C-alpha cells in the first residue's frame, strides 16, 4: 500500500502545482482509503475524483466531465480504475455506466504513467474517438454512419450533463415532448439518442422496456 499511497501524494502535488490543461484532481473529504466492496481481503483502495475540460473543436468543447478514480493497492504496477460519472455520448465510453474503453487503462498500462497522464489521455480520447474499438456499440454505429447526428447528440449531452455552452433546441424539444408524456427525462434522452432522434421509434423502445 505504501508505494501506492506515496506515489499518489506526490502526483497530487504535481497536478495541483502545474496544471493548465483543464484537468483537475481531487482528494475525497474524510477517509482516503476503503476496502473494496466486493472482496473480504484487507487490500485497501484509494478513492479519488478528477475532472477534465472537453477539448476545443469537438462537441465536448467547454464542458467539464467528472471521473471517479480508484487506485488499486498494486498501483503503479496495475492501472487505476477510471469511470466517467458525468454522462457522455462517445463511442468509447458507455452512455449507461460511464465505463471507458482505453488501452492504457488495460493491457497497455505502464508503471511510469500517472493519474495526470490518464486524465490527459482521456482528454485526447474525447478529441479522437476509436469507433472500431467501441465501448458503446450504438454510439459507435452512429459515429460511423451519421457523423453530423453524432456530433449533435454529443453536444446536446454535453450541454445537459456537463455545462456545455451550446444548447441543441431540437433535441431539448424532443426530450421535453416525451417527458410530458410521463417518461423519465434521462431515459427519454437515451432512447431518442439511440433511435437517431426519431420520436416514434424512441417511444416504441421506451414502451418495450
Amino acid at each position, binding site marked *: 500500500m505504501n508505494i501506492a499511497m*506515496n506515489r499518489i501524494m506526490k502526483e497530487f502535488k504535481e497536478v495541483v502545482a502545474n496544471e493548465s490543461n483543464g484537468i483537475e484532481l481531487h482528494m475525497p473529504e474524510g477517509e482516503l482509503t476503503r476496502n473494496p466492496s466486493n472482496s473480504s481481503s484487507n487490500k485497501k483502495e484509494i478513492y479519488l475524483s478528477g475532472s477534465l475540460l472537453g477539448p476545443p473543436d469537438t462537441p465536448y468543447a467547454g464542458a467539464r466531465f467528472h471521473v471517479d478514480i480508484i487506485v488499486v493497492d498494486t498501483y503503479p*504496477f496495475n492501472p487505476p480504475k477510471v469511470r466517467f460519472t458525468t454522462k457522455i455520448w462517445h463511442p468509447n465510453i458507455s452512455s449507461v455506466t460511464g465505463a471507458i474503453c482505453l488501452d492504457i487503462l488495460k493491457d497497455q498500462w505502464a508503471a511510469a504513467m500517472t493519474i495526470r497522464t490518464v486524465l490527459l489521455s482521456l482528454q485526447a480520447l474525447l478529441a479522437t474517438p476509436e469507433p472500431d474499438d467501441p465501448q458503446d456499440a450504438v454510439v459507435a454505429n452512429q459515429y460511423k454512419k451519421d457523423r453530423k447526428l453524432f456530433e449533435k447528440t454529443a453536444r446536446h449531452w454535453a450541454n445537459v450533463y456537463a455545462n456545455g455552452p451550446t444548447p441543441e433546441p431540437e433535441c431539448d424539444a424532443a426530450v421535453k415532448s416525451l417527458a410530458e408524456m410521463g417518461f423519465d427525462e434521462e431515459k427519454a434522452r437515451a432512447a431518442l439518442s439511440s433511435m437517431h432522434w426519431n420520436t416514434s421509434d424512441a417511444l416504441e423502445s421506451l414502451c418495450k422496456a
Partner: protein
Amino acid sequence: MDQTEVNLEDFTCSICREIFQSPVSLSCPHTYCQSCIIGLRKHSDPLSTSESIPPVSSLRSGSFSHSTHVHQSNQCFVCAICRQESLGYVRYRELENQLNTLETSCSNCSMIFTLSDLRKHLETCLPIKQHENIQTIPGTTIRQLSDSQTKALQLAQAGDNRSTFQCPFCPRANFSLTHLRQHIKKRHLGEDQRRVCPICSSMPWGDKSMISSNIYQHIKNRHQFDYDTYVNYEQDEEAMMREALQASLYNQ
C-alpha cells in the same frame, strides 16, 4: 560541485517518483530504484516484494556498457516506460556515484545535501510555516535551557540586553544577530529546526511560547536588521518596521 546544474527530474525514479535509491538499469536502458523494479517482474504479484533476486557475480558479455556488475536471474522485467522486456538488470554504478557526490539544495529549507541524503531529508522536511503554536509540537522538542542561556534570557527579558542572543541549539550565548545567523548555519543546520526564537522572545512584544518550525529561515527572513539600531522598545514591531523603512528612504 556546481549546485545549480542539478535537475532533480534526471535523478527521479519514474515508479516511486523519488530520487533514485540503489539505481538499476534494464537493457532498454531505463533506470529505476532496485526496490521499485521488483514490481516490474513479468507474471508476478507486484506486492510480493519480500523475495529478493540474488546477484550473480559472473559477468555477462557487453550487453550493459555502463556497469560491471550484472545481476543475472531468470526473471523477465517489463520496462515501465517503453514496455520492452529485459532479462535481469544491472546496477548503475556511475549514477550511484553521482547520487553520492552531486549536491543540491532542498526546495523547502534551502539546506544543501547530496542527492542521496536529500531523498531521506525530503521525507521529513515540510514547507516552511512562519510560526507553529506550541501545542502542536510534541513535548520532546522543548529543551531545557542551559545556565548561560537562562541568564541571557533573564537579562534580555529584563530589558538589559537586547543586542546579543543565546543560541537556541547549544549552550553558547552572547551572539550578535549576524553571528547567531552564521553560527546556526555552520553548526546546527542538520538538526531539528523547531526552536523558540531567542530574538523574538527577548523583545517586549515577543511570544516566548512560540516555536518556529524552521528557526534558521525564521531568523534569516524575520530579523534582517539589528534591533538596537532602529528600535524604540516602547513601540510594536510593525510600527518600527515602518520607521526603519522610512529611514532607509531618507538615507538614499
